[in-house]
């Protein structure tokens, strides 16, 4: 009688131990770089490459300046934005905007676009251009830098250069901080999977 109980208990304990070991081992390998997880390194690599590729391609076509200067002088915000002053659902109708849209929107990737620049007092200020919410923990970022000169001209909503230069503009977001150049603007894309 005693012996039978002992055997049964032993069997159960052994089975539990085995099962626990198997589960433990499986748990440790549950997240791999290739499994479909938002924290996957491969996916982050690819998103970062796409983001920096888009910025490089846009830079080659002078598309970064175009977006940075896509400014409505009379309203004091980017063209066709609502009162909040930045784009939310659709990116700006510029070279960079349409490239971002083609690269990310159809892939289920969300992105924010920021511009940061120096204020006259030497602080770095970051403004939103496209804002779609707070990025997730595994967001990636890529950035390029654009130099603006005093006589760079703002673009109208049809992407034609207006007659308003940065020096003449009273509502442009960045101030004139240099003696030779106007300001240096860093264009940053933050992308994440949704």
């Amino acid at each position, binding site marked *: 009688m005693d012996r039978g109980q002992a055997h049964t208990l032993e069997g159960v304990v052994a089975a539990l131990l085995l099962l626990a070991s198997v589960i433990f081992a499986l748990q440790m390998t549950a997240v791999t770089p290739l499994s479909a997880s938002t924290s996957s390194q491969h996916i982050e690599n690819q998103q970062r490459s796409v983001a920096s590729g888009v910025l490089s391609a846009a830079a080659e076509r002078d598309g970064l300046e175009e977006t940075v200067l896509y400014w409505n002088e009379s309203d004091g915000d980017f063209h066709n934005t609502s009162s909040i002053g930045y784009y939310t659902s659709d990116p700006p109708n510029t070279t960079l905007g349409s490239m971002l849209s083609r690269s990310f929107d159809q892939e289920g990737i969300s992105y924010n676009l920021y511009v940061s620049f120096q204020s006259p007092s030497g602080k770095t200020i970051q403004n939103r251009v496209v804002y779609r919410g707070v990025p997730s923990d595994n967001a990636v970022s890529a950035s390029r830098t654009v*130099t603006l000169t005093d006589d760079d001209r703002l673009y109208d909503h049809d992407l034609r250069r207006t007659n308003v230069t940065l020096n003449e503009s009273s509502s442009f977001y960045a101030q004139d901080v240099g003696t030779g150049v106007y300001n240096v603007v860093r264009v940053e894309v933050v992308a994440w999977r949704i």
Partner: protein
Amino acid sequence: MADLGSRSRGQLILVAAFALAVTFVALALVVNSAIFTENLASRGETGGSGDALTLRHDVERGVGQSIASANVYNTTDQSALQQGVDRGIGDVNTAYSKQSAADTAIVNVSRKSGSTTYGSRVVQNESGGRVFGPDNDALLSNEWTVIYGVERVTPASEPGNGTRAFRMNVSEAPTAATPFTVRAEEYGGSAEWRMELYGDLDDTVSDNEVTVTITKPSGSESCTVAVEEEYTIVDVTSGTVAGEPCDALRKGSFDGRFSNGVGQKYNITYANGDQIKGNYSLVTANNSAANMDAPNLNDSYDADDPRASPYVTEAVYDVTVRYVYQSPKLEYETDVRVAPGEPR
């Protein structure tokens, strides 16, 4: 089988279970380290060299804009130009070092002393544009020399050009029978590089197009680009027409880059300038504009004189800057030659 009492048999099972558990844990370690290795291997480059090179490119553009700005506003003489360029480089240095500090990198940009190549900038810049003639229009329909004695600069890396940022904003295009022609003619020689331009830029924008034909000593090639406006920008040295790449003007199997194959020194001439209308500007490397033989150009801009265009001013052709990038993992230091809009 040996005599296994209930006690010793239970021990055996327990030991076996432990052994299995340890095996699984070990296996998990091995598998995870393999995954981690692959993860590390599949990260792009981890040293941050991509950032250093991207920033170098941005710095080159920034310094290029400083040069362009100085060539417009600080043209009194060569020392004024130098000061203008230095101010621009100083601003670029300040701004980029601040920006990159956010990425834990130290960036320094400074001009290499004695690295500036001076030259001239020829500009026609009148509202509404003007025919491409000399300042007195006397030789309008004939071939006339825009600038004499352009000399190629030769950086250590590759043979440079002597002309950069040659852009034409064309508002009226000639017909195919009398194409507007730009020639780069070998100085004291007979080799020539020729660009013929004709097209249609009227109110009916749907069929507007511009054709550019390049003829150089070893052959000719052309490209035709559809234009959606009543004007177009032909960037001769960057090889674009209306923003689209034009293969005939670029490096490739044909290699029709501006002045390719005409020797170390050349003149630039225009012909059929009365057939075309618009504005243009170009920067060349040659003697100081002050003592240059340029009978067809005004030596400075005069807004009151309707025939003031084209005019010529002193200009900076290229500058070499020292670019230093230091991050915790990487130190990168190089000389960057900046000649914005040079054929490459």
